[in-house]
């Protein structure tokens, strides 16, 4: 399962960020979510959502081997092994790995899909296709 982005449908509401952090940390804080919204205003005037594409660059650069792939295709962070070195953050080509502001680990999307359930414009949708890299398998 992956997330399909229809970027022109994003309205910048950040409901995805809110539900992401409530789902994973049981508190309200968009800075603890695993996706981001870019807003370009006043010109040209557009929003762009960025989500994990399952490219695996984070796993490759992690010196602690703290990132591993689950069957779902998601790259999961072992919070015990992660020492928050931050090497994976610049390695992510879409910029959706974040340092947890209060704890010593990074946040990466686990594809819980809550963000795709609440929006009503279709900017983020469930994409029922095999995990990236497994398409040919």
């Amino acid at each position, binding site marked *: 399962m992956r997330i399909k982005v229809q970027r*022109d449908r994003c*309205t*910048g*509401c*950040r*409901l995805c960020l*809110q*539900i992401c*952090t*409530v*789902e994973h*940390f*049981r*508190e*309200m*804080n*968009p*800075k*603890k979510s695993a996706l981001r919204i870019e*807003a370009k*205003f*006043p*010109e*040209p*005037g*557009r*929003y762009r959502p960025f989500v994990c594409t399952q490219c695996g660059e984070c796993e490759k650069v992690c010196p602690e081997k703290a990132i591993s792939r689950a069957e779902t295709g998601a790259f999961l962070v072992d919070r015990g092994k992660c020492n928050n070195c931050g090497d994976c953050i610049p390695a992510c080509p879409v910029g959706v790995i974040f340092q947890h*502001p*209060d704890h010593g680990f990074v946040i990466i999307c686990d594809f819980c899909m809550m963000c795709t*359930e*609440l*929006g*009503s*414009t279709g900017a983020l949708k469930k994409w029922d296709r095999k995990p990236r890299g497994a398409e040919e398998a």
Partner: protein
Amino acid sequence: MATSSSSSGTNSASRNGLAGTTLRIDLSTGAIRRMPTDQDLYRRWHGGRGITSKILYDEVPRDADPLGPQNLLIMNAGIMTGCLIPAGAKVEFGGISPLTNGVGDSNMGGHLGPALKHAGYDMVIFEGIAPKPVFLYIDNDTVELRDASAYWGVGSLDSEKRFKHELGEDFEIATIGPAGEHGVAFSCITHDFGRQAGRTGQGAVMGSKKLKAIAVRGNRSIRVHDVDALKQQVVGIVKRTQTHPNMEPWQKYGTAFFIKWSNDNGVMPTYNFQTTHFEHVDGIDGDKLVEKCLITHKACFGCWMNCGKYTRAVVPGKAPVHLEGPEYETGSLCGSNLGMRDIHDVAYVNWMLDNAGMDSMSGGGVLAFAMECFQRGLITEAELEGHTLKWGSVDDAEHFIDMMVHRRGIGDWFAGGTRRAAERIGRGSEKFAMQVKGQEMSGYDGRWAPGMLLSYMTADIGAHHNRSWTITVDMAEGRERVEGRAKIVVYLQHIRPLFDTWCICRLFWGELDITPEEIVESLNHITGWGIDLREALRTSEMIWNLNRCHYLERNRGNGRSFDYPPARSWEDKIPSGPGQGKGLSLEQIEQMLDEYYDARGWDRKGNPSRALLEDLGLGEVADNLARLGLLGEPLPGGIPETRGEKYKPKAF
């Protein structure tokens, strides 16, 4: 950027929906104080406009100049803001209004309110006047007043762009424009390139304090009483309402799809409320906005209904501009009310007012009043520096806005709003100065909508529709009769301001049928208060009466004397369109006021009675009114047990 003063300290922890810390900033000295947020104050007044009203009542001297150092500017992010609530995005600004000389409050959506709470703060109270232009910088625990001299004189939208460029895109910014700096009484506060705290001139209060902007960034968590229950409830509501039939038009057009409806139903303000039907409406309705100007749909924080329309206006001979809107209110008040025939023209006027930092509702009302004065020869080309001020002319509007912003010549009179301008012009112009208590009317003519007119007459901040909107009520209950309308207006004046008290958007109740009981349930999940709707409505009634008493104390007169609309409302029948020949008599207006005061437990002079105020826990306020001889007489049959009659207006 030089830092005038700064404060770095440990903030209180977030719990029960509150971020934890309140800031108090004396701009005169630069002193920044941080205090734990007063939970009891929130429990009694719920936040938002409740708390701003209470603090203004307690702290601002009754003779304080709204643009002087003793007035306060209060920014309050309500208890539900940023808490996963549908469009729980609002932040309330409150201060004594330079437009009405009563309590003023206005809120904005966007992302500023949540950002303030994520930085750790529920409220910022500004007092005094800074010796030179400053802006407030908040980055989590760091709170600083910084020099804003380089931004002074820069447009609202232009300065937001510059602040974002210099501080970082992830800062949320509120700014004022040159109008606010120059004390134009209907100046607004702008955020997110098109969200405004528009009404009651809070931008002028901010400008008087030499506070150019507020910039906020934070990454702290907000904690609530029962996050699991809240999540379950909100997810259910969001999924349920995704398929509501009103969702599609709201997402596509926002409120702009209302333009034609309003015109078809004979309530459209046209040529300064001379008539209620605009023959060129097809050129300015929502369809045209989406077809010709739309760039992207735009939503407030946490809202899945995206009523905001971000647009581009192109007017020949002028550089293209970007703006949010025009939504319905601006679309009517700067559209048909100014005789603008093309949506690009309406949008351009909208942008000019936005960037100047003027409320585009009052701005439209003031421009329309000036245009009618010009039409009638009450102001001349010589007074307009050689320009005309004709219906439908963007160039004329542009020049006159510039005269008002810089308060040149007669621009100075109009900078005080329509009421003050009419006082200066005289010669019968008061009749068509379309305001109540100094605040210009919203975009509905009340002559064939009596409940709407009564709503304007009695609203605490003057002729604004958000306290009570009754167009569909009037259509359902009879547009030519007034009996029974007052009780509904009273109810609406209690339920609708609750949303401004909680700092959430009201549209979900009105348009998507989320019930008030559901919202109170969310409130309880957030706060743990365990209250019911009845108690919430009572709180709202308490706030309403406090503001009424505050108005009487400041303006030293019986309430009724302030509650009349301009004489056009009863002297002129609607001359054209579906409402042709319709109109109210002065007797009907008097009857509505009598019924309204009876329904509220006020005497026929429009003054709250002691029995009522004590019932609401405002005994000390009754004492204050009594000292001024403004306390209402005891009512013959005692106060009504229930004030207001429950009513859910139809969407349209």
